[in-house]
């Protein structure tokens, strides 16, 4: 079947197998930031945006993206780098394999809410497993980023 979508800002049409998962489709398009960590929708590694809403690309047929916008970390380079600097400052990226999914979801959260509380951050990112970091460094990084953004923009952002 033919799939037409906007991937990271680029409109494209592709012939696809109807059964292909969005995750596999995205990797075949060179979006290697999208990782698979499970087969049971438990890990969050495969998180991408479908029309700006975070979804698990392992649990979605590529066909569902018909006519819609899909964004992976490749399409968010600048936004990602801003936040990434703060995670890196904590040394919290460790093996990095969970990072893209975590970054996508963290970016979604910070777009939704400029100053989430610690509990809100934890709740929102609960589906993003990380086996290396123990999560605290990621949390410190996000909190430091929020502080920075506040001072950068002179008060609550957005």
């Amino acid at each position: 079947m033919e799939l037409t979508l906007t991937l990271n800002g680029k409109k494209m049409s592709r012939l696809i197998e109807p059964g292909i998962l969005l995750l596999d489709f995205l990797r075949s398009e060179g979006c290697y930031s999208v990782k698979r960590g499970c087969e049971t929708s438990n890990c969050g590694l495969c998180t991408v945006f479908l029309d700006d809403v975070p979804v698990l690309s392992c649990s979605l047929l590529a066909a569902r993206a018909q006519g819609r916008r899909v964004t992976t970390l490749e399409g968010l380079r600048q936004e990602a780098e801003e936040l990434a600097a703060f995670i890196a400052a904590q040394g919290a990226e460790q093996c990095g394999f969970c990072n893209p999914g975590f970054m996508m979801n963290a970016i979604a959260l910070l777009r939704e809410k400029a100053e989430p509380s610690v509990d809100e951050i934890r709740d929102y990112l609960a589906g993003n497993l990380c086996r290396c970091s123990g999560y605290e460094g990621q949390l410190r990084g996000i909190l430091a980023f929020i502080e920075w953004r506040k001072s950068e923009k002179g008060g609550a952002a957005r």
Partner: protein
Amino acid sequence: MKIVNTSVPKKDALQLLTGQPVYTDDLAPKDCLIVRLLRSPYASAIVKSVNKKAALLIPDIEAVYTWEDLPADAKRFTLAGQTYPEPSPHDHLILDRRLRYVGDPVAIVAGRNEAAVEKALALIKVEYEVLEPLLDPTVAKDNKIIVHPEDDWEALCPVGADNKRNLCAHAESNAGDIEATLADCDIVLDRTYHTKAVQQCMMETYRTFCTIDTYGRLVITGATQVPFHVRRIVALALGIPKSKVRVIKPRIGGGFGAKQTCVSEVYPALVTWLTKKPSKIVFSRYECMTASSPRHETHMRVRLGAMKDGRIRGIDMYAVSNTGAYGDHGPTTVDLTGHKPITLYRTESYRFVADVVYTNNMPAGAYRGYGAPQGMFAVESAVNELAALLGMDAFLLREKNIIHEGDYLPSYYGETNTSCALDRCLARAKELSGWEEKGLCRKLQNGKVRALGMAMAMQGSAIPYLDVGGATLRLGDEGTYNLLIGASDMGTGCDTILAQIAAEVLECDLDAVSVFGVDTDASPYDSGSYASSTTYLTGQAVYQAAAELRRRLTLLAAKLLKCEADEIIFDGKKAAKIDGSGALTLAELAVASQAGNDVALDVTASTKSTASPPPFMVGVAEVDIDTETGEVRPVHYYGVVDCGTCINPNLAKVQTEGGIVQGIGMALSENVTYAPDGRVYENSLMQYKIPSRLDNGRLTVVFEPSYEKSGPFGAKSIGELVINTPGPAIAAAIANAVGARFYELPVTPEQVAMAAAARKKK
């Protein structure tokens, strides 16, 4: 120190955080054959026949291999990545006729796409002779069912192995007369502990791709902690010379010891070697949960002898470690089960006896801490129970009995405790956690109980007299450096830490050191990243290489400036004559080194160690317990660590936090259990519950460093140590809350609820 002991970001941080394609499956050629395994549905069976005709008729199928396709003289090998000759018995074949656990490979299928391979797997017809499995490790020794009856099974090292008795290893060690000591004690606590198998659950499952290079050699690229061991193991498995194999390690998505075993490499290696086509295997999470290399399930009997005044006089431990179907890391993991926890205490005598047994469970392997977390749970739980029996504070009991710096350690291979801040760790942990003010247990407004528990731990730093650390440093263009290593950065940050050590010695910026690793054709030999060795052992190699390169730089400068080397001072930026009559910048030296030069500015250093200096940790768990449901929620975990000098405090801290959370998982939710037919129940991340960020509570980690003279800039290890304390500390906290002890990990809500209910009835 300018760069060592500072929290510089990891050199690869931004690449990882922005999702760049740096992992095995991102780099695999697009035309790779897809390799998958047909796995045994039975825990014990013999393959009578395999009919692969139908599978081979599928157009996109390239090959189907079974035991019949292996060379007749194929030799057994071990998948354990250890220095040769490996202590782990040679008990594997790539494909065997005898299947020893549910998941043991029966056939290898290679095809041009997933769908074809999937179909082929379904079409292979196998006739099995199903045998009765042996699933209980406590009756495995001398059982009538023998897991490895074959005659070509071989133990290369004297580890007390005997396949005809299901023994992968048997070990005994002691100092003093333990029976006499115990007979003379006021109290002898005699308890049996059990820790279940737990999974590393690195987020990147096992994966490997293989190609053939310009020279017809086999190139293996994959997620491994032990590239040089992989080279040897695969060569042995395929029966080809090691010189025909090259191993490359890109970024790894976590290892934790899992990738110290060659779980995935041999299959695509066989396919590519036979077909001469690129191939790759990517384990599903299901395979990773059912056919991998989890921690050894261990049963331990501990006898702890003490006096009424709290003096601990003797520890006796007998351990039965379940290595499952194969003996990867079996003989060596168990060693830590006894020696690490027993060594924490000054005793008159000790004894440690262990049997490592084969069963028809999934084979065990290396997991962070190796065998130590099991033993630490047993001994630290026993000491906590002793404290309760004596009515003595758990910290006070430790303070009376711990080892100190300078102590001779009979249960630790006769080493001397050269650097030890365990006493300071205790004091700090007590203060930090509010141990005295809070009390062991208090009722909360919401009806729950908040309780505290504590435990200590130690680990080692590298395997002395055996493993080798290696580093090559060379001067590059513009006066920058290349650091080539054979140790695997698996997310731990060793590329960065080793560059910090080089930069410190060479007095340059961290950015001036480019790190390369690992390629067995280009990297200096290194045993690999395991046994908490990288910072301590490879770090020393880097230190030595950097010091020698400095010396060579002054040599070259002296030649060019026409003076003696001792008339030159090198400050990292330039080499100048002491009398001020001439100087060369590093960049000028770099240019000079490439024209008419015969001083090689390329240094390789290899190091071994003569000791394995232990790092120490004290952990305090604060947990909330719902006595109705038995739910246990970690509220706060306090960790105080002595890893010597922290080369990079941030990375050491995150290592510690990650280890604590893994330990919390092991304590409360992670569990591998078997159906009566030998199938693993927890076969996904849905059933096997690793902590999410809602499950760990808050973490506070601080360092109380000692200074280890033999380590680079005083450093010891950190990676494994930090997983050890949560098991016993959390179990102790629960015991303090519900008044019953727990002798098994994980402690499940059911057990807690039952214990709480039983107490209410009384």
